C-alpha cells in the first residue's frame, strides 16, 4: 500500500488521487491530472488548488504561466533509474519558483529519497516495503555535506562557494 511521507513524518489524511481511466477522485478527494488535462482545465475554468503530474517526457516549464492555479505538482519516476524527474523538480523550484507541494510518485526507493529532497521534492508516495520500514524508523540514508547548491535551500558550508551543509 502507498503512504505519503514528508520530512515531518507520514501524512494521515492525504486527499490527492492520481486520476486514470479507472480511478477518479471522490467527493472529498483532490485530483492529480496529466499535463494536457491540466492545461485544458486552466483554459476552461477558474479553478485553483489544482494538481498535475509531470511525466518524464513532459516539458515542466509549460506550468510557468499557471503556478497560481496549482497546489501540487507530482513528478513521476516510472522506474527508479529514470532520472528526469530530478531535473523537473529542480526546474520547478529554482527556475519557476513554485512554492506549492512537489511530490515524487512512482518507483520511490529509500536510497533515492535524500537526492529527491535535495532537488526540492517535499512529499513522497511510497509503496516499497524497505522504504516504508526505514522511513517509519526514521533511518534516511542521506549525507549531511554536499558539494553543490541545489533547489532545496541549504546552508553555506563556510568553505568553497559550491559547498553546502543540510
Amino acid at each position: 500500500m502507498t503512504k505519503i511521507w514528508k520530512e515531518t513524518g507520514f501524512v494521515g489524511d492525504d486527499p490527492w488521487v492520481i486520476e486514470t481511466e479507472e480511478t477518479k477522485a471522490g467527493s472529498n478527494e483532490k485530483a492529480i491530472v496529466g499535463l494536457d488535462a491540466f492545461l485544458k482545465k486552466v483554459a476552461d475554468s477558474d479553478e485553483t488548488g489544482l494538481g498535475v503530474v509531470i511525466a518524464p517526457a513532459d516539458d515542466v516549464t509549460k506550468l510557468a504561466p499557471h503556478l497560481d492555479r496549482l497546489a501540487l505538482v507530482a513528478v513521476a519516476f516510472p522506474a527508479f533509474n529514470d532520472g528526469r524527474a530530478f531535473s523537473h523538480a529542480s526546474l520547478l523550484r529554482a527556475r519557476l519558483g513554485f512554492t506549492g507541494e512537489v511530490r515524487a510518485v512512482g518507483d520511490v526507493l529509500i536510497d533515492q529519497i535524500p537526492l529527491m529532497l535535495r532537488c526540492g521534492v517535499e512529499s513522497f508516495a511510497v509503496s516499497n516495503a524497505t522504504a516504508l520500514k526505514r522511513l517509519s524508523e526514521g533511518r534516511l540514508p542521506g549525507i549531511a555535506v554536499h558539494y553543490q547548491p541545489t533547489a532545496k535551500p541549504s546552508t553555506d558550508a563556510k568553505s568553497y562557494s559550491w559547498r553546502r551543509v543540510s
Partner: protein
Amino acid sequence: MYRYDEFDHAFVSSRVEQFRDQVERRLSGELAEDAFKPLRLMNGVYLQLHAYMLRVAIPYGTLSSRQMRMLAHIARKYDRGYGHFTTRQNIQYNWPRLSDTPDILQELASVEMHALQTSGNCIRNVTADHFAGAAADEVADPRPYAEILRQWSSVHPEFSFLPRKFKIAVTGAERDRAAIQVHDIGLHLKKDENGRIGFAVYVGGGQGRTPMIAKKIRDFLPEEDLLSYTTAIMRVYNLHGRRDNKYKARIKILVHETGAEELSRQVEVEFAALKDTELKLPETDIQAISTYFAPPALENRAEGWESLARWKKTDPEFARWVQQNVQPHKHPDYGMVTISLKPIGGIPGDASDAQMDAVADIAEEYAFDEIRVSHEQNLILPHVALADLEPVYRALVASGLATANAGLITDIIACPGLDYCALANARSIPVAQEISTRFGSPERQAEIGELKIKISGCINACGHHHVGHIGLLGVEKKGAELYQITLGGSGDENTSIGEIIGRGFEPEKVTDAVETIVDTYLGLRRDGQETFLEAYRRVGPQPFKDALYGSAQEAA
C-alpha cells in the same frame, strides 16, 4: 596535489557508511540486485565474469606515494597481489569479495581516496593530461578545474541517474594528451585575447559501438562559468538524452540526432538562466584550489646535463630508456619520466603490489612524492631531475619497470577482455602479449617509431581501438573469436576514428596481420621521420588492404 579538508573527510566517511549499509541490506536480501546495482556501481563495484571488480578513482590520475602504497596494500590484502591501471587513469581490482568492499573503501578513505562514481550512469572520474603541471607547452594546469568538477559532480542529486555514463576530460595544452574529443565533454583550457583563462568546450565525443568525434559548442567559456555551463549541458542531456535504448543513450547520440547547433542553442538557453546564480565560481575559490597544485620548488640542477651525457655513453640501454621514456620538463634541468607498465609479453596496465611499493619509494626519494597514471595505462613521474635519472632507472630496472617503449609499438592499450570482463566477446590480453613479444626487439621497435596499437575485446571499446593508429576489435563470429583491424585512428588534437580495413583475422593470424601492416608502412614511408599515422594519412588504406588481402581480391 589536492588535500582533503574536514568537509571532504566527512563526506567520504559518510559515503562509506552509507555503502556499508547498502551492502548489508543486499547480503541480507533486503535489497534486490536490480535496485542494488546502480548503488554499487556508483561506488565502483562491478559484477564481472568470475567475481566482483572494484574500480578505485584516481582523480585526474594524480597520486602521492602514500596513496600508491595503499593501492599496493589493497592488492596484497584483498586481491591477488596486483591491480590493473585503466584508460581512465583509475585502478581496478579483479578479485575482491563484495563483503570486503566497505572495508576497502574505508582503508582508501584513510588516504583520501574513494571509488565514487567510477561506474554507473553518473558523472565519472574527471581525467586530465598526465603531464599536467610539468609539460612545457601548458597554458595552465588543468587539474584545479578537474578537481572543482570532481567535487561538484560528487553525488550530484540531479545527475545521479542520467541516461548513461558521462565522462569529462580536461587538457591545458594545445597538444591534447587527454583525448578530450572522444569524451562526453572535453574542455580545452586556453587564454582569450585579453589573457583571461577559459575553455573551448567540446560535447558528444565517444567511442563504443558508435564512435564520434566531439563537436565544439563554445570557443571560449570564461573559467567562472565552468559549473553553470556544465550544469546546463547536464540538464539538457538528463532531460532529452535517449532512455529507450542503452546503446543510443550517450550524449553523442543526442548531439548527433539533435544537431550540434540546436543542442548548443538549448544549452545556451539553460546557461543564460544559470549564469548568474550561486554556481558562478569566485576567483578566490579557483585560486585556493589552484594553490594545492602549485608545482614543487624545483632547484636548478644543471649538473645533471653532464652526468646524464656520461651515463648515456657508458650504458646504451639506459640511453635508450632516456630517449624513449623521458620527456622535456618545463624546467630544463628536469624530465618527465614514463614508467612503462607494458613489459614485453606482459599484461598492459598491470602492476604487482611490490611494483607499486617500489614506485612509491622512488617517487618519494626522487620525484617530489608525485605519481600520475596515464590514460595509456602507464605511470608517470612528472618531476625528476636529470641528475637523478640514473638512480631512478636502476631502481626501476630492479622492479622490472624499465621497459623503454613509451609510445612505441609494444606500448599497447588493451581492455581486460574475455579473461575478466562480462561484456567481452574476445580476449584482448593474450593478443597484446603476442604482438608485444613479436615486436619486442628494441632495435625493431626503434626502427618502426611511434605507433599506437589499441585493443578492445568488444564493441564497447574500452581499449580505445577506434583511436589506435592500429586498432584491434575482438568480435565473436560463429562461436569463435575474430579480430577486426582499423587503421588511422588517433586520440590527440587531430582526432580521427580508425577505418575498418577489411574482414577480420583469427586469433592465431592477427599478429601476422599486424606485422604485414607494419612491414607495408616501413616499405612505403618517405623516410624514418614519417610516422605510421602520417604515412597512413598520406597514402590511405589501399596499400595496406593490398598487402593484407591481395590486390586482386576485394576486401570484404
